[in-house]
C-alpha cells in the first residue's frame, strides 16, 4: 500500500498557524506513507499537477490531502487523482483550515491538531476500497415553489429552455409581494406595469403548468428523481368555468379581511384579490363565507353566470415526479405590533406599515391612489417615516438589515411629495444603505429635489396629541433629541421568512437559519444551491433581497436546473450500503430503519431470504449499518473498520 500525503499551505491561511513541514515529517514517519510534501496552493493548477506527478512517479495507490474543508474541494481533488489514473474515492481530504488553522492562534496547538487529523486521514484511507458510481435517469420536469417575481422568472427561464415546469402558488394569484407595490426604486417604474405581462406570460406558457391555491404536502426521493405530493386546496370555484366577471364578489354579503391590501380596506368572502390577478379566478374563503359559517346563503351560486360555484369541492392531492426543485417562497413583512409598544403597538390607526402605505399609493389600491389617514380620511401633510422597524434590532431578535428599507422609504418619501405637493416628509434613519446601481443618487434626490428631511436617529416613542402624533426621535448629527408632529407615521418594517418556511425546509431537507431563511450551500460560490442536491433557491426566501437581485438569482437557479436536467442522467454517489449476504441472518432490521426503502429481500440460491440494497435508492446515511445486529451491512466509505481505525489512530 503506497500512501501519499499532501499538506496545503493555502498561502498563509494554513501555514501561518500550522507548521506544515512538521506535518509532512510526521506523515513520512508513518507506515505505508511513501510520499509527503507541502504545496502552497493545492487547488491551483500547479498544485494539482504536483499531486498527479507524485502519484504517477511514486506509484501512489492512496492519497491524503490536508487542506480546507472537503465540503469545499472534495470534488476538485477527486477529479485530480482520477486524472492521475487513480480511483477518485481513494483520496481522503483532511480539514486543517476551517477546523484548525482558522480557529486556533497558537502554532503548537494547531500543528499538533493538524498532525492528528492527518494521521487519522491516513488510517482511514488505508481501509478505503475503490468505488464506482452508477448513473440514474433524471426526470424531465421541474417544480417551482412560489409564484412571486422570483418564481415566475425561474419558471419562465426553465420553460423557455423547453423543460416542462409546474409552478405552485399558495395564494389565489401569482405575483407575490411585487404585485402589491405601487412603484419600484430607483426608476419609479410602475410595479404592476412591468410585472403583469410576466404573470400573464407564465400563465399562458405551454410548458408551464400553473397551480394556484396549492401547497407542497410532502417530498420524497432525491436529486433527479423527486416525488412530490401537491395539495390543491378547495376554493369552491371551478377554475375552468370561472370567467372572472366578479359579479359574485359584488353580490357577496360576507365581509372578509383584505390580505392583499395588507388590511387597508375590506374584501369579500368570495373574491379575486386584485384586478390584475392571474389566473383571473374567484375563490371562496370558507372561514368568512356565510354558506359555511351559517350554513345558508348561496348568493354567489345564484348569481354566477358560468355556474362555477361548487360548495362541495374538496382538497385534492396531485402527485408528480420532478428532476429538480426551485424554492422561491419569498418573504412576509415583519409584524411589529408585539415588539414595539413604544410605537403604539397597533393602538394608533395613523401608524401604518410601509406595505399598507404602498397599497394606499397604488392607483389600483383600496383608496384609489389617494393618501388618506385611516383615522379620519384626511390628507396628511406631515408624514414621518421610521426605518429599521424589526431590523437592526437585537432586542427584538432581528439584528439583520432588511436591505431594502432605506430605498423603499426614499421612494415613498418621493411619492408622498408627488401625491401631496404641500406635504413634508421626515425620515428617521440610522444609516442609509444604498448599494445598488443608481440607489445612492435616488436617496439624494429624495432629499434634494423632494425636500424630505432626513434625521439620523432611531425613534423612541410615538404618542397621540390633539389628533396628531408626536414622534420623539433623535438627530445624532446635530447631537440631540428632536420631535416631529405627524399626521401619519409609516414604519419601514423588515423582512421575515414566509409563513411556514421552516416547515417547508424540513419537507425538502434543506437547512435554514434562525429566521427561517433557507441557507445556500456556499455563501460565495454556490449561492443558489442548497445543501441538498437538486434543490435550488431564488429570491427572498434565502434572505432579504430587492427585485433585481431576486430576478437575477431566479435566472441563476434556472441555469443550474437546466444544466442538471438537460444532462438526462446523473452520477449517483457510490457511497451506499452493501450487504455481506453470506453472513446476513435476514432479520431485516435494516429494512425497517431505512428512510428510503432502499432495502429489499433477495432470495439466495439456497433459498435463504437476505437483505439486498437498491443502489439507486440508497442515499448513504448509514442508519442500517448501525442497526445490523451481526454487523454485516456496511456503508461504503464509512465502514466500521475505517471509522475504528481512524479513532484508534488518534487515541494511539
Amino acid at each position: 500500500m503506497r500512501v501519499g500525503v499532501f499538506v496545503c499551505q493555502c498561502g498563509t491561511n494554513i501555514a501561518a498557524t500550522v507548521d506544515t513541514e512538521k506535518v509532512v515529517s510526521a506523515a513520512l514517519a508513518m507506515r505505508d506513507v511513501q510520499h509527503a510534501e507541502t504545496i502552497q496552493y493545492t487547488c491551483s493548477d500547479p498544485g494539482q499537477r504536483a499531486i498527479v506527478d507524485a502519484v504517477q512517479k511514486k506509484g501512489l495507490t492512496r492519497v491524503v490531502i490536508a487542506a480546507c474543508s472537503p465540503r469545499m474541494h472534495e470534488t476538485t481533488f477527486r477529479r485530480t487523482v482520477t486524472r492521475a489514473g487513480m480511483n477518485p474515492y481513494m483520496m481522503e481530504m483532511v480539514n486543517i483550515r476551517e477546523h484548525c488553522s482558522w480557529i486556533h492562534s497558537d502554532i503548537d496547538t494547531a500543528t499538533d491538531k493538524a498532525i492528528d487529523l492527518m494521521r487519522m486521514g491516513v488510517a482511514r484511507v488505508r481501509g478505503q476500497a475503490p468505488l464506482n458510481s452508477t448513473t440514474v435517469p433524471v426526470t424531465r420536469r421541474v417544480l417551482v415553489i412560489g409564484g412571486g417575481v422570483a418564481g415566475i422568472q425561474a419558471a419562465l427561464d426553465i420553460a423557455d429552455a423547453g423543460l416542462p415546469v409546474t409552478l405552485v402558488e399558495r395564494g389565489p394569484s401569482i405575483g407575490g409581494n411585487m404585485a402589491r407595490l405601487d412603484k419600484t426604486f430607483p426608476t419609479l417604474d410602475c410595479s404592476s406595469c412591468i410585472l403583469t405581462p410576466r404573470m400573464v406570460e407564465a400563465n399562458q406558457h405551454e410548458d408551464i403548468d400553473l397551480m394556484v391555491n396549492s401547497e407542497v404536502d410532502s417530498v420524497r426521493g432525491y436529486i433527479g428523481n423527486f416525488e412530490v405530493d401537491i395539495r390543491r386546496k378547495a376554493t369552491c370555484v371551478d377554475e375552468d368555468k370561472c370567467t372572472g366577471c366578479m359579479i359574485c364578489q359584488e353580490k357577496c354579503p360576507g365581509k372578509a379581511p383584505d390580505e392583499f391590501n395588507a388590511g387597508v380596506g375590506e374584501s369579500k368572502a368570495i373574491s379575486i384579490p386584485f384586478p390584475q390577478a392571474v389566473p383571473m379566478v374567484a375563490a371562496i374563503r370558507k372561514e368568512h363565507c356565510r354558506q359555511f359559517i351559517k350554513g345558508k346563503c348561496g348568493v354567489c351560486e345564484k348569481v354566477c353566470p358560468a355556474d362555477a360555484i361548487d360548495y362541495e369541492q374538496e382538497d385534492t392531492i396531485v402527485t408528480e415526479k420532478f428532476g429538480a426543485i426551485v424554492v422561491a417562497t419569498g418573504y412576509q413583512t415583519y409584524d411589529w405590533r408585539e415588539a414595539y409598544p413604544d410605537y403604539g403597538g397597533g393602538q394608533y390607526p395613523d401608524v401604518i406599515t410601509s406595505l399598507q402605505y404602498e397599497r394606499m399609493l397604488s392607483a389600483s389600491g383600496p383608496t384609489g391612489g389617494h393618501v388618506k389617514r385611516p383615522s379620519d380620511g384626511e390628507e396628511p401633510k406631515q408624514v414621518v417615516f421610521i426605518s429599521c422597524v424589526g431590523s437592526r434590532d437585537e432586542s427584538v431578535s432581528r439584528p439583520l438589515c432588511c436591505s431594502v428599507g432605506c430605498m423603499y422609504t426614499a421612494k415613498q418619501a418621493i411619492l408622498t411629495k408627488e401625491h401631496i405637493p404641500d406635504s413634508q416628509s421626515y425620515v428617521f434613519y440610522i444609516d442609509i444603505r444604498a448599494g445598488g446601481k443608481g440607489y445612492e443618487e435616488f436617496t439624494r434626490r429624495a432629499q434634494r429635489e423632494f425636500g424630505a428631511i432626513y434625521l439620523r436617529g432611531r425613534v423612541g416613542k410615538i404618542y397621540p396629541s390633539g389628533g396628531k402624533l408626536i414622534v420623539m426621535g433623535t438627530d445624532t448629527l446635530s447631537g440631540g433629541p428632536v420631535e416631529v408632529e405627524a399626521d401619519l407615521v409609516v414604519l419601514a418594517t423588515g423582512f421575515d421568512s414566509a409563513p411556514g418556511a421552516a416547515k417547508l425546509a424540513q419537507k425538502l431537507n434543506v437547512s435554514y437559519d434562525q429566521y427561517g431563511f433557507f441557507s445556500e450551500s456556499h455563501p460565495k460560490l454556490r449561492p443558489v444551491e442548497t445543501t441538498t442536491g437538486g434543490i435550488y433557491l431564488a429570491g427572498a426566501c434565502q434572505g432579504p433581497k430587492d427585485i433585481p437581485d431576486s430576478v437575477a438569482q431566479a435566472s441563476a437557479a434556472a441555469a443550474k436546473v437546466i444544466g442538471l436536467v438537460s444532462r438526462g442522467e446523473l452520477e449517483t454517489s457510490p457511497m451506499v450500503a452493501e450487504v455481506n449476504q453470506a453472513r446476513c441472518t435476514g432479520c431485516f432490521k435494516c429494512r425497517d430503519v431505512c428512510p428510503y426503502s432502499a432495502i429489499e429481500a433477495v432470495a439466495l440460491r439456497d433459498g435463504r431470504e437476505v437483505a439486498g440494497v437498491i443502489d439507486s435508492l440508497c442515499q448513504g446515511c448509514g442508519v442500517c449499518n448501525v442497526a445490523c445486529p451481526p454487523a454485516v451491512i456496511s456503508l461504503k466509505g464509512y465502514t466500521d473498520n475505517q471509522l475504528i481505525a481512524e479513532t484508534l489512530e488518534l487515541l494511539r
Partner: protein
Amino acid sequence: MFHKLAGLPWPLSVNQIHKGIGDGEFSVSLGDWEGVPLSIRVSASVAGGAEVVADIERRSGERVSACYQCGRCTSTCTGAFAFDYPPHRIMRLLQLGQVDEVLNSRTAQLCFDCMTCSTRCPMGIDVANVIEHAKMIADERGIEGGEKDIRRFRLAFLQNVRRHGRLHEARLLTWFNLSRLKPFNDFALVPVILRRKKVHIVPPKIKNREEIHRIFREVNGNGKSGDERHGNEIKAGGGAE
C-alpha cells in the same frame, strides 16, 4: 412644523475642524450651547482613556463597543435637555476614549438613572448602567462637573440618613437649600405640606443607630459620611454656582 424641544440650538453645525493640536490630534467643534463647547478631541488621550473605558466596561459588564449610535437612548431620555452630552454621545465619547469629557460632563452628574435608555436600546446595552459607573468614577475622583448641587443633594441625603437611620424629609429640604444658599426653594410648598400633614416635625429615629454607623464606617472607613475624603464636607453656605 418641526420644533426643537431639546433646548439645543437648531440646527447645530460643524463649525471647524482644527488639525495638529498636537501629535495626531484633531478636534471637531460643534459650536457651543449654554457656554458648553460641544466639541470632541480625538487624540493621544484615547490611549489613557482606553483603560478607564475598559474599567467602566469591566465594572458595568456592558459592551460600549456594541453601540452603533442609533440614538434611540437619546430620543426619550428624560434629562437630555439639561445634559451637555445626551446618552448616545456619552457612549460615542467612551468609544473614542474621551474619558475626561465624560467624567467632567454634566450628564455624569445629572443622569438620575431612570433607565429609559436601557429598556429601549436595540443592542440591549444598559446605557444607564454605563453612565452610572462613569458617575461613580467621577465621584471617586471628587469631580462635580459644574453640577455641585447634585452631589451636594446626595451627600446631604446620606448625611441625613446617617444621623437618623431614616430620612427626615423636612430637614433634608431645609439643609440642602441652605447648603446652596437657596433657602426658599420650594418654600411655597411648605404651608401646603404642613396643612396636609405631610411631614413630621420631629425627626424619625431608629433604635439601633450604631449599626447604621457601622455601615457607613464599613463603606468609607470613617465615622463621618466620608466627605472629607473628597475634601468638600457639607456645610451650610458652601459655595453655590
